[in-house]
């Protein structure tokens, strides 16, 4: 009702525009979807063999690993916090999985241990941020460096590999191949997006996440335990990063101590492209889905279009800025 009144004052725009505005307000992921379509169309026209099953499977594979990390980050960002340590956590989890596999532990046990360690790191991130009352940007910047340093110190800079004679079932479950070049990681990714989306949209916890990021004081008054919500989300973010590390190891069977370096920024970029606000309180996982597909597509698309691959980063930079400008303007227009 309130919106209609405001809209009425602005020389009553046509009714369909008003409806589009309402729809856009409910769908901040639209900008990312439009961008995805434009880039997809662009590559389909310019890049040879872009529209093949192999090519799409490969893009989905890249998007899946990035997306599992980005989904956790999105959740955390909606509650108003950051996690820069996900790349290091991915590396730590993959390394634990690799070292335990090499030591002939049961793979399932090593996997659980890797995820538990990730959860511990996430819990620590959350605890420090909430208890010390410092920005998570700083907390996780510190833990990002710390865990990367531990990785380097433990391995002496060398990769750790594990070569089973036949691929174990555990690895197939985590990241086996199916239907040509498609990988299990895509299923994990879609499952996680679906699950987190249900939690976010349909549960009380989801409401608490939005409230924590939107207006913390109001959330507290309403009885939302904001600190608890944040710590839980830090754990979710870290566990998903760890899972992505294990999934990657299941395919490559080798981990180097630089694994996951720089991933945090790509994951945040994908979430932001998808309409998640850096300031918290807004965003959704469908947007992140489009965001990671967009980021995942750009690299091989550019290579196949014959552009020098050194251009990739510049291109992603442009996409991030354009996407946020478009998203912000759409949102402003929709809120009028």
């Amino acid at each position, binding site marked *: 009702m309130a919106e209609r009144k405001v809209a009425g004052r602005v020389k009553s725009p046509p009714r369909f525009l008003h409806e589009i505005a309402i729809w856009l307000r409910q769908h901040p992921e639209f900008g990312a979807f439009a961008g995805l379509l434009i880039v997809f169309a662009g590559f389909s026209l310019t890049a040879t063999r872009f529209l093949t099953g192999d090519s799409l499977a490969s893009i989905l594979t890249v998007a899946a690993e990035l997306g599992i990390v980005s989904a956790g980050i999105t959740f955390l960002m909606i509650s108003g916090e950051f996690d820069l340590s996900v790349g290091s956590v991915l590396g730590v989890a993959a390394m634990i999985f690799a070292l335990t596999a090499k030591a002939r532990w049961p793979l399932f046990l090593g996997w659980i241990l890797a995820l538990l360690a990730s959860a511990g790191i996430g819990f620590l991130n959350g605890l420090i941020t909430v208890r010390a009352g410092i920005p998570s940007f700083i907390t996780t910047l510190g833990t990002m460096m710390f865990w990367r340093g531990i990785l380097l*110190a433990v391995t*002496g*800079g060398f990769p750790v590999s594990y070569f089973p004679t036949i691929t174990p079932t555990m690895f197939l479950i985590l990241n086996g191949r199916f239907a040509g070049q498609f990988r299990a990681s895509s299923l994990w990714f879609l499952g996680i997006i679906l699950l987190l989306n249900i939690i976010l949209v349909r549960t009380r916890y989801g409401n608490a996440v939005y409230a924590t990021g939107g207006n913390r004081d109001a959330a507290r008054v309403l009885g939302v335990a904001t600190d608890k919500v944040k710590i839980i989300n830090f754990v979710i973010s870290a566990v998903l990063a760890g899972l992505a590390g294990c999934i990657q190891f299941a395919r490559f069977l*080798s981990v180097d101590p630089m694994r996951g370096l720089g991933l945090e920024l790509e994951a945040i970029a994908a979430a932001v492209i998808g309409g998640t606000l850096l300031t918290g309180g807004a965003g959704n996982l469908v947007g992140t889905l489009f965001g990671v597909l967009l980021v995942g597509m750009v*690299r*091989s698309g550019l*290579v196949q279009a*014959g552009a020098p691959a050194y251009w990739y980063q510049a291109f992603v930079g442009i996409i991030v800025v354009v996407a946020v400008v478009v998203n912000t303007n759409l949102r402003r227009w929709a809120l009028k």
Partner: protein
Amino acid sequence: MKKALLLALLMSLVGSGLAAEYTFYVVSHGGPGDPFWGVVMKGMQDAADLLSKGTGDTIKATYLGPAVYSVTELVNMLNSAIAARPQGVVCTITDPAALDEPLRRAISLGIPVIAINVPDPRPAGERIPYLFYVGGDEYLSGIKAAERMLAVKKPARAVVFIHEVGHVGLELRAKGFIEVMSAAGVPAEKLAIGIDPTQAVDIIRGYFAKYPDTDAIFTLGPLGTLPTVTFLKEQGLAGKVMLGCFDLDEVTLKAIKDGVALFTVTQQQYLQGYLPIVWLYLYNKYGFLPANDILTGPGFVDSSNVEKVEQLIKQGYW
């Protein structure tokens, strides 16, 4: 009588010569806990032990390297080595600006200096006047790698996967490789693949979609080799595409044994610990110097020596 005295004097001189003691320091940017530098350390110690046993002189060699990479710490360690007034210092010229003053001071104090692993890249007049350099040559490594592939078969198209764009060493390897391939009439270029293996495989797949005739790949280190080997295996291209790698790790060695990779280039860093100690001894004792820098790399590991090298890695020689 005089003759006998002279002879006795000479004998005693030679005798004291036999009992001479030499102290050498190896100062490097890599910590002793780093497996790469562990091999250098072993080379240094083996040389000192062998010389001590074989000559009767006492050769003491000490390895100094910061546990975590730090130029400040490297300079501090170098200064403490110089303060001990040894008969020789071996140093990696990791940061020519920071090492310029202490090394020149050492040289002016009459301490012989040998550079290892990383030379001073500046032209002859400006560089630190160390005796000579013992180590690999990045540019030559690329050249030799390309020549090795051309000796097997002239590829239709060659590509260098660079995982760390702007890394001077990697760019030099790529440059040497591309120059030789281009001179042989093979279209060759570099492709930036980054360090994330999943994304790297996707980029490589994109490149092969664009240029399906590609049949020679040169990777510049284990970070590039892992996604390349994975890609070739997953696409059934193993053995059909010539693959040359860089450095030794389990993935690379397995790729050579499985016939996925043709060879890998190594800088045989054991020699970077061993040879300077031998030369410092020869220089101190007899004044000998080699005519040129001594190149320990490019050395090659391929199917002919991979089994042997694998054993020797376990014993700390490679």
